[in-house]
């Protein structure tokens, strides 16, 4: 089997259109992205020039309607995330943040003017967005954030800082969440606004082909129309995260599939003790366990996609998908690395790169512990966060 997802014939559950979207993304990535990934990862960069190409395909905000967005199904969006993350989690992160966090926040909570101003350019990849919720002192517990927006006449003054913000230092506009007298509100802060500065975070061991930054707001003056009128309370940013998490459920399957495909190829060719290592029972046990785990993760993702397209997807179900699929993908990527032996530790083979990336994926968009607590609450009725 060249594609380990064939084990359970997951593709057989897709429509022709879904498959064509998935194939188109895979083909684009094979031509334009895969040859350069190791280089970008090594250099710790994300090539901004790629954004317009992603936009031309329709990848940015692809499941949103209007304003230049493609308006695909949730499953098609998931499959695109799967292929993107099969290339690299950093690339999928870029697309998730742009589409599901930055664009979604404007699409769902923005005024018509804000939508017209930003969404078409963001869909085309001409403008890049980021989403600032996490702070140095508040990650899993954003309700207690310190960043404040204070009324000053009709204007707002924004004061505070955000941490670990994907695309932060390459963004043209930041969706920033801040505490106000009336609770948490969202604001659109264009790059270059006086008092708004960014610093790229260096020395990452994970998600190196993605930009992560710290944002600082030193009494940034914003006009009244910078506020997202529809966003009231913490529920608003959490609804955005739920969108992005949905993509991660599929994305993790992609990273795992790629790891497994690479390890299978290697094991068929690599001869030790006079046999291909694929022919040893110990290796086959690894492959069998991973094949089953990958297939079930893919089926779970697809199930969630069908629920979402049917308008029935619940947040705790997305938590179950993220918890299971990222955990499974991380185990698979690490196990695949063992099959590659010494060869597995450089950038020539993808599994360890995927494993390193998935450490971030396990943490962001809600840590595995927090998703465990979400599922625990859904099952027992007791909230155990604090």
């Amino acid at each position, binding site marked *: 089997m060249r594609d380990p997802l064939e084990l359970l014939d997951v593709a057989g559950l897709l429509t*022709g*259109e879904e498959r*064509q*979207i998935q194939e*188109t993304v895979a*083909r*684009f990535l094979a031509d334009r992205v895969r040859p350069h990934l190791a280089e970008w990862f090594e250099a710790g960069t994300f090539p901004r020039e790629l954004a317009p190409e992603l936009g*031309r*395909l*329709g*990848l940015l905000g*692809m499941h949103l309607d209007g304003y230049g967005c*493609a*308006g*695909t199904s949730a499953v*098609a969006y998931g499959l695109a995330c799967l292929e993107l993350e099969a290339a690299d989690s950093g690339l999928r992160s870029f697309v998730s943040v742009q589409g599901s966090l930055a664009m979604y926040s404007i699409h769902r909570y923005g005024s018509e003017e804000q939508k017209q101003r930003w969404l078409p350019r963001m869909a085309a990849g001409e403008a890049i967005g980021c989403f600032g919720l996490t702070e140095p002192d508040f990650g899993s517990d954003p309700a207690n954030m310190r960043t404040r927006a204070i009324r000053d006449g009709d204007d707002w003054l924004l004061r505070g800082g955000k941490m670990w913000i994907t695309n932060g230092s390459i963004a043209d506009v930041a969706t920033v969440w801040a505490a106000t007298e009336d609770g948490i509100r969202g604001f659109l802060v264009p790059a270059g606004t006086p008092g708004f500065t960014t610093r790229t975070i260096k020395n990452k061991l994970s998600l190196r082909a993605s930009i992560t930054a710290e944002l600082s707001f030193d009494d940034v003056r914003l006009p009244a129309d910078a506020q997202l009128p529809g966003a009231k309370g913490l529920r608003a940013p959490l609804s955005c995260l739920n969108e992005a998490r949905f993509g991660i459920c599929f994305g993790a399957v992609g990273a795992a599939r790629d790891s497994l495909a690479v390890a299978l190829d290697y094991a068929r060719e690599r001869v030790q003790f006079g046999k291909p290592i694929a022919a040893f029972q110990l290796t086959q046990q690894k492959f069998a366990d991973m094949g089953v785990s990958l297939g079930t993760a893919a089926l779970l993702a697809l199930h969630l996609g069908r629920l979402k397209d049917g308008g029935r997807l619940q947040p705790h179900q997305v938590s179950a998908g993220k918890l299971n699929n990222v955990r499974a993908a991380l185990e698979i990527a690490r196990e695949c690395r063992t099959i590659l032996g010494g060869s597995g530790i450089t950038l020539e083979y993808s599994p360890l790169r995927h494993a390193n990336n998935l450490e971030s994926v396990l943490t962001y968009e809600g840590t595995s512990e927090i998703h465990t607590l979400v599922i625990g609450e859904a099952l027992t009725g007791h909230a155990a966060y604090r």
Partner: protein
Amino acid sequence: MNIVVLVKQVPDSGAERSLRADDNTVDRGAASNVINEMDEYAIEEALKITEAHGGEVTVLTMGPAGASDSIRKALSMGPAKAVHIVDDALRGSCAVSTSKVIAAALGGLNADIILCGSESTDGRVQVLPHMLAERLGVAALTGARKLTVDGSTLTIERQTDEGYEVVTASTPAVVSVWDTINEPRYPSFKGIMAAKKKPVDTKSLADLGVDASEVGFAGATSTVLDHAQRPPRSAGQKVVDEGDGGVKLVEYLATEKFV
């Protein structure tokens, strides 16, 4: 500018391909079928021309019912509509009868330019564009690596082994292209979703006024009688370099008539 692009569905040249044991035709059931690669370049060229000069692109395919999959893919790149010639009697058609059927279908389409790939990756005969031009009584601008449109004048650079020739004709004309002519676009997601709703006109031989006895196995001017697997590679010869390795290599190449 009305452009018809000929699009053929072929077995993926990147995967294992085979002929059927019973009638020596391409085994489509066993293959993963794709758009003939060169035809994607023809589609791209057609789209570029209509984007610059206006007009409409129509996809024309002769092939079994399953070819509709490739037609949708072609439409997802941007053409407005398609014509699909399907008829059980077409099985086993040779290039001569294929050109007859396609010429008949082109009759109703009023094309200024008929664009196609220079060859298909399954048949590889390269004669269809010429036969078609002959039947239609129009110019054949074949093997293009570049095409320029100036009013009703078409100019191509015809790629040859040594370089290129500049050939000019006026519309209507058949133009066949090589994969050096452009870089085909990826279908956009909007294009993929829009393709579902684009009209595909299905035509039978009767619709085209072509007699079934003139096509398919019945009317074939050439037929594959038998086929066999390529023999497995033999072990090869080892040349040991004892200071005269270069000479020995050249001698070998000379006996094989490579030099």
